[in-house]
């Protein structure tokens, strides 16, 4: 009788404990959920009035303005779909260009046009730090060009062998662990539903994540009020990956662009977006 009573008490106690544990889990779940909701609410409140639009306007003026030593506009620039064709050009970059015999992303292609059409020194601009001189104009131009493909589906060409080779290189580089922290791009961007602090990390190995991660840049960064091109986004990723300084328009950045862009196939571009 006594042992039964003890067992009974024990059972009640266990049941009570399990209810406690359940409520505790629910509590922390609700807590995490409400944080996520609040962040979503914050982001929604910023959606109307993306300052990236200021840079789109600025980029449009720059595109049409006669500039550089030759005092000519960029309107004859071929971004892959023919001279001056903007609509849909961004969702097919990076791609192979016959004239330079290179796979180029938007920013490196813009430099080519600035050099060949306007007479600027492309390598001097490439060596200029972000946020200084012509680099400011390059990011505004990138914002403008990308805005002309907003809502379109990514469809990077893979017909030229160099485009396919760059995809394979980009994939290998994405998984390359090195540096003092042993980080690779994949350390943070190869799993679903993970985050750093409160920032959601897109899984760039799949369509959804690649579209969210690749398809949002150029973007206006709320944290520092700057307009960043993909080149600048990758530069800062690599800084935090504890890698050395990537050269502007280097094959590493372009191969990664091809890998991410091809993975985004069919996803819709939301560039220029608003980012943390």
């Amino acid at each position, binding site marked *: 009788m006594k042992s039964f009573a003890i067992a009974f008490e024990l059972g009640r106690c266990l049941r009570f404990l399990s209810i406690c544990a359940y409520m505790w889990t629910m509590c922390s779940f609700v807590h995490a959920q409400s944080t996520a909701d609040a*962040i979503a609410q914050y982001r929604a*409140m*910023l959606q109307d009035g993306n300052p990236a639009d200021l840079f789109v*306007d600025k980029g449009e003026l720059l595109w049409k303005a006669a500039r550089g030593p030759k005092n000519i506009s960029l309107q004859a620039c071929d971004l892959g779909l023919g001279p001056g064709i903007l609509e849909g050009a961004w969702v097919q970059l990076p791609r192979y260009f016959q004239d330079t015999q290179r796979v180029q992303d938007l920013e490196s292609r813009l430099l080519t046009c600035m050099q060949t059409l306007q007479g600027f020194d492309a390598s001097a601009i490439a060596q200029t730090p972000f946020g200084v001189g012509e680099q400011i104009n390059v990011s505004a131009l990138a914002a403008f060009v990308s805005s002309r493909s907003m809502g379109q589906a990514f469809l990077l060409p893979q017909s030229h062998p160099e485009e396919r080779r760059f995809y394979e290189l980009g994939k290998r580089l994405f998984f390359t662990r090195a540096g003092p922290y042993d980080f690779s791009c994949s350390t943070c961007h190869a799993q679903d539903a993970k985050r750093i*602090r*409160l*920032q959601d990390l897109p899984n760039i190995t799949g369509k959804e994540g690649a579209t969210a991660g690749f398809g949002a840049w150029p973007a206006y960064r*709320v944290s520092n009020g700057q307009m960043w091109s993909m080149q600048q986004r990758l530069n800062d990723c690599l800084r935090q990956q504890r890698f050395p300084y990537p050269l502007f328009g280097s094959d590493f950045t372009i191969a990664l662009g091809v890998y991410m862009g091809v993975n985004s196939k069919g996803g819709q571009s939301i560039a220029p977006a608003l980012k943390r």
Partner: protein
Amino acid sequence: MTQRRDTLKWGALLPTALGIGALFTQEAQAFEKTAFEAKTWTDALKAMGVSSPTESKDLVLNCPDIAENGAVVPIAASCASPGVKKIIFLVDKNPSPLVAIFNVSEDILVNFSTRTKMSQTSDVMAVAVMQDGRALVSKKEIKVTLGGCGG
């Protein structure tokens, strides 16, 4: 699209086309320098001749519970009661709490939105200064989180 083109076109023309200097003369004299430099929100209000605002449900302060980044925090206020003269936004724990003053005219609704910087988690306030000298206040705490990799 057409809107933007209009903006661009007019933007280039207007500064020269209008005699803008005259627009600001009135405001320039009225600029609340002392209030903007005040170190507490009560001092800021005092500098504008506003004291002891009462909490009111008529004044609606719309802002998020959490700001993912303190550099840009959306804030908005609206007030349905008649007789509002100014809407003032303040962030309690900012080095200088006064953010902005919006003057109400007969041509606009008492409904303003902007974005503020917050140095840390703090109460955010909207104050409505009424024609009859009364003042209403609506408060809300906004948590500022640390984002990114911290590098």
